[in-house]
């Protein structure tokens, strides 16, 4: 990778922020409508304590929901992908479930569990498990029949075929879904925190909105974006390590 290629993401972000700053100054946009990046940075610095505290809460909730999504979504994906009966029975229900806007479910969770961490964790889980389940199922369902013949002709049991072929074959799909799911999990947590929370970045942003403290709202958005990028990068590295065999060329890049 060349120097320029490495620098590209930073250059692009810098360009974006500078452009934003310039436009905000040039058109004299009021701070409570669209704060300039420098004002957001000041707010980040001034409120560093509460922001850190609440980000941590959001991060922990997100990871808990995400962990649930990975385990349950993974199991569900394997079940759907390896059994036609389960696929038939469960798939329509899953799609229906996924179509329900999660904002609408949060109040129900609050009635059941109060306003603590549980609604946030559950919402993060609900938003993020679907792509994992679908991808794992797709990975299993698209195993080449020739691969199966190799194992079947040896007299392999179904569980052996799953372990030796199915699971390794669906790992690239699984990791691809993790990158989507982790960003979705943040969305889930923050939806829940904004609807009904007493802690977390989402709550902080709602409180800031009520005070017309737009720079703090944007500071919250920045923190969420950064958290999302960091988590995405972590899973991208894990993917690269675990499924290097699935990505052998540069793909479509030239």
């Amino acid at each position, binding site marked *: 990778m060349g120097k320029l290629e490495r620098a590209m993401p930073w250059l692009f972000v810098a360009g974006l922020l500078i452009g934003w700053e310039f436009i905000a100054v040039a058109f004299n946009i009021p701070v409570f409508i669209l704060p300039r990046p420098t004002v957001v940075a000041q707010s980040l610095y001034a409120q560093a304590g509460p922001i850190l505290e609440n980000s941590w809460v959001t991060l922990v909730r997100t990871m808990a929901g995400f962990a649930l999504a990975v385990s349950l979504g993974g199991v569900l994906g394997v079940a759907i992908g390896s059994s036609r009966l389960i696929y038939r029975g469960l798939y329509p229900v899953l799609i229906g479930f996924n179509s329900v806007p999660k904002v609408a479910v949060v109040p129900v969770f609050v009635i059941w569990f109060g306003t603590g961490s549980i609604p946030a964790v559950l919402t993060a889980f609900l938003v993020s498990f679907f792509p994992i389940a679908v991808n794992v199922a797709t990975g299993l369902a698209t195993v080449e029949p020739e691969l199966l013949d*190799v194992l079947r*002709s040896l*007299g*392999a049991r179904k569980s*052996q075929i799953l372990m*030796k*072929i199915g699971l*390794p074959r669906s790992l690239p799909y699984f990791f691809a879904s993790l990158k989507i799911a982790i960003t979705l999990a943040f969305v889930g947590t923050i939806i829940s925190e904004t609807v009904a929370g007493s802690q977390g970045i989402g709550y902080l942003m709602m409180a800031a909105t009520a005070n017309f403290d737009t720079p703090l709202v944007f500071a919250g958005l920045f923190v969420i974006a950064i958290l999302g990028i960091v988590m995405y990068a972590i899973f991208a590295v894990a993917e690269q390590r675990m499924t290097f065999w*699935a990505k052998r060329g540069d793909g479509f890049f030239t």
Partner: protein
Amino acid sequence: MTAFVEISDVSLMYPGAGASETLALDHASLSIGKGEFVAVVGPSGCGKSTLLKLVSGLHAPTKGSVIVAGHEVAGPIKIVGMAFQNPIMLPWRTTVDNVLLPLEIVEPHASRFRTNRKAYAQKAKALLAAVGLNGFADSYPWQLSGGMQQRASLCRALIHEPDLLLLDEPFGALDAFTREELWTVLRDLWKAQHFTVILVTHDLTEAVFLADHVHVCSKRPGRVISSRNVDLPHPRDKYSVEFVSLVRDLHNGIAEVRAA
């Protein structure tokens, strides 16, 4: 001599809706002695590959019976090694781990695989060396050429020392030089270990170069319509007069089948 593989009066219908049902094999019979090298040739789509799937137990016949080593085939049987037209390696495993795959499945190896892993890996590497893949054991299959992958695939078919080797056009996708080199590799392995081989191919030279008996299939629905013995001594010279005339005979026979 009782036959090692006895295919008697077998028909196979691939299911489909109404007229899309296809009769792949129609009262086909074939009998193969232990240690024999048999080639099945015929026009494409004549049910040659279906025949192998029946023998391996991947498919059950609609009518008739398949007996291997004295037992009627009712499901996949473990004394079989199989290689296909494509090498079908698992891309997440190194070449040696691909070759070891059958040992993780087939008993008695599977239950002692963990404790004997080193010895098994040695055996796999020796086999890889025998087919000219010395030093490639730890490469991934996608780092190897098509011919090298096919060699590895042959090793995988043989690692568990099957009594019966089923080959479904394994050299069909290779260039001529690699193909002929692999013929000699296969011949030498067969001479050394004396397993029984059923080779499905549409390359007549390949069939005559390797096999004791060449069986010709009719076009779909397939049936064995003629058989030729190849009595030439190994190593065979594919430019000798006898060899060439045998290939020509088979060629003419198949041309008639196709025209019929």
